Each structure stands twice: as structure tokens, then as C-alpha cells.
């Protein structure tokens, strides 16, 4: 259910995005950092749904808040001549890996459980015979 919604959102987004007007090159750096922040939020959202502690308010505020904050920090960094966006990328990508690891573990656990269950069933069936 959740993954159908995600895939549907991605497809519709791609279709609309292809026909959207281009933004100017000056702002593409800000959009890039916002994309990274939003991507991190989405992976965080998926991971928390799997862990069953998903909070809509935290998720939505994180999605927009992180994106806007990272844009502001990048802007500040440009004014101060410090590449703050590098720090933002390190943090967001690090968290993305964490969340992906959570998602991976969840599915590996599920998979091994299933296999063990089916093995047990097989063993039971063979012993019955």
C-alpha cells in the first residue's frame, strides 16, 4: 500500500517534472541541496513506517523544514565564503545510509523468518509422513 503510493507519486512527479519550466542556473545549487534534504526525509519516513513509529507531523515538518533550512544554510555559506552545503550533504547522506540500513535489515529479517517458518513446516510434514 505504502510502496504503491510512493511509486505512483514518483511516476506522476516525473511526468510533471519533465514538462516543468527550467529554473535558472543560479538557483540550481539551492534546489540540489533541498533535494538531498527531502530525499533524506523520505527515506526516514519509510524507515519509521517499518519501525512502526511514524509520526505525520514530524515527517511533514522534517520534509519542508530540512529543505528550507539547508537552502538557508547554503545561502549563508555562500555569503560567508564557507562551503556549508558540504556539511549538510555529509549529514543528510549519512542519515540516508542509516535509514537505508534500517530498511534493509527489516526486509532481511522478514525474509529469514519466512524461510525458517517454511523449513519448519517442511520438517513437520516430513515427520508426519
Amino acid at each position, binding site marked *: 500500500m505504502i510502496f504503491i503510493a510512493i511509486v505512483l507519486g514518483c511516476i506522476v512527479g*516525473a511526468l510533471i517534472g519533465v514538462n516543468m519550466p527550467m529554473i535558472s542556473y543560479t538557483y540550481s545549487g539551492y534546489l540540489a541541496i533541498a533535494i538531498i534534504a527531502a530525499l533524506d526525509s523520505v527515506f526516514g519516513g519509510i524507515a519509521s513506517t517499518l519501525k512502526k513509529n511514524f509520526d505525520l507531523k514530524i515527517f511533514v515538518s522534517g520534509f519542508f523544514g530540512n529543505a528550507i533550512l539547508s537552502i538557508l544554510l547554503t545561502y549563508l555559506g555562500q555569503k560567508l565564503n564557507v562551503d556549508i552545503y558540504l556539511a549538510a550533504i555529509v549529514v543528510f547522506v549519512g542519515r540516508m545510509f542509516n535509514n537505508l540500513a534500517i530498511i534493509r535489515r527489516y526486509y532481511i529479517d522478514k525474509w529469514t523468518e519466512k524461510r525458517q517458518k517454511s523449513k519448519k513446516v517442511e520438517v513437520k510434514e516430513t515427520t508426519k509422513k
Partner: protein
Amino acid sequence: MNKKQIAITLGVMCFLLTIAICVQLRTMSSASSTVSQTLSDNGLRDEVLRMKEKYDNTYSELENAQKELEKIRQEATQNDSTAEAKEQEIRENNILLGNTDVTGDGVEVVLADATVTNSLNPSYQIIHFGDIQDVVNELKNAGAEAIEINGQRLVNTSAITCEGNIIKINGERVGSPFYIRAIGSQSLLYGALTRAGSYLDIIREYGNTAEVTKVDDITISKYAGSITYEYMKEDK
């Protein structure tokens, strides 16, 4: 929190995210496909792209302002015969100054660097700014009314300069092949450039390309810059 709500929110977020990614991808692919290895090169490229964008924006603003001015001028002169005459005068002056696109019959001269090296001195085998100047002088002498070189309109403030290994006209760099287009009496212009011992013959001698063709209905674009003055005053 039910599952449906979670699914819808995640879907909407992904939707926004993919839109942003698509826009970003398209912007980057249109900006430039080459990413340099060094940071300083990338910075310079960034700077150039920003400047270009700024220039384009300002230029389009200028064009809009000019259109607006034209509109206001027309509105102001609608019911006034003396103003109409003045309007006509302004239009004529703009044509003479090179502030408008103009069309007419004329000639096109193509100058290009030699493709085969057969001279000991390679300097002879490229078109120099002096060659262009000489051709332009020849055209002006023959009564050319509007001249354009590779899209750069020649006006009274135009300069054809040599800046190291590039040629600049109106401060914009131009490169070989040079398409010099001029509006004027076709036979006079053509005759001046093709007469025996004309400047094109000298250019051709070293293997460079120099061709003249009569072309009907040439459109010559207007001067992209603005002509201003600061120091001169009218002498009474």
C-alpha cells in the same frame, strides 16, 4: 495514524521530490554537460554561467523597456500631427543609428582561415582584424548602408579590434568564418570587392577563403548595445 494517511503523505512527498529532481536534471543538462575535475575550473564555469544568465536577463529587460517606450510614444503621438512628424524623425534616426533591424538587397562576403597549410608563415593563413577592417572600408567606400559581421552590427561606435588570438567587434568575440553582410547598391558593392587587385584578391593569395555573393533581402539585426554620450555638447 492509519496506513492510508501515511501512504498518501509519502506519495505526495515523493511526488514533490521527483518534480524537483526532474527540474534539476533538466537545468543541469541544459547548463553544461562537462564537469571539470578541478574545483577552480568548476567555480569559473559557474561564474561564467551566472554572468551569462544575468546578461540575458538584463538584455530581455532592456528589450521589454524599449517595446514599452515604443508603445508609449505611439500612444502619445496618436492624435497629434506635429508629434507624428517627430515620431517619423525618431524612426528615421534610429534606422540611421542602427537601432532597428533593417532589410534590403546587398552582398555577403565570407572570409575564412585557410584549411591547407602551404605557407612558411602560418600568420598569413588566418584572417586578421586588419583584413576585416579593409573589407569593411571597401564596403563603406562603395556606399554600404548597414553592415553586420557575424551578427554584430557596425554602428558609429563600433570597433574591430585584435585581442591576442581573437577578434572582437563591439566588444564581442567573433571567429572565422566571418560573414560580412552589407546592404547597399548590389552592383557597386559587388564591383568594389571583385575588381582586379581588390583586397579580397590579396586575402585569397595565401589560401584563405574570400567570397562575395549578391544576396537579395538581407536582414541585418539591430545593434545590441546602447549608444550614449557623456562628454560632448552641442556647439552653438
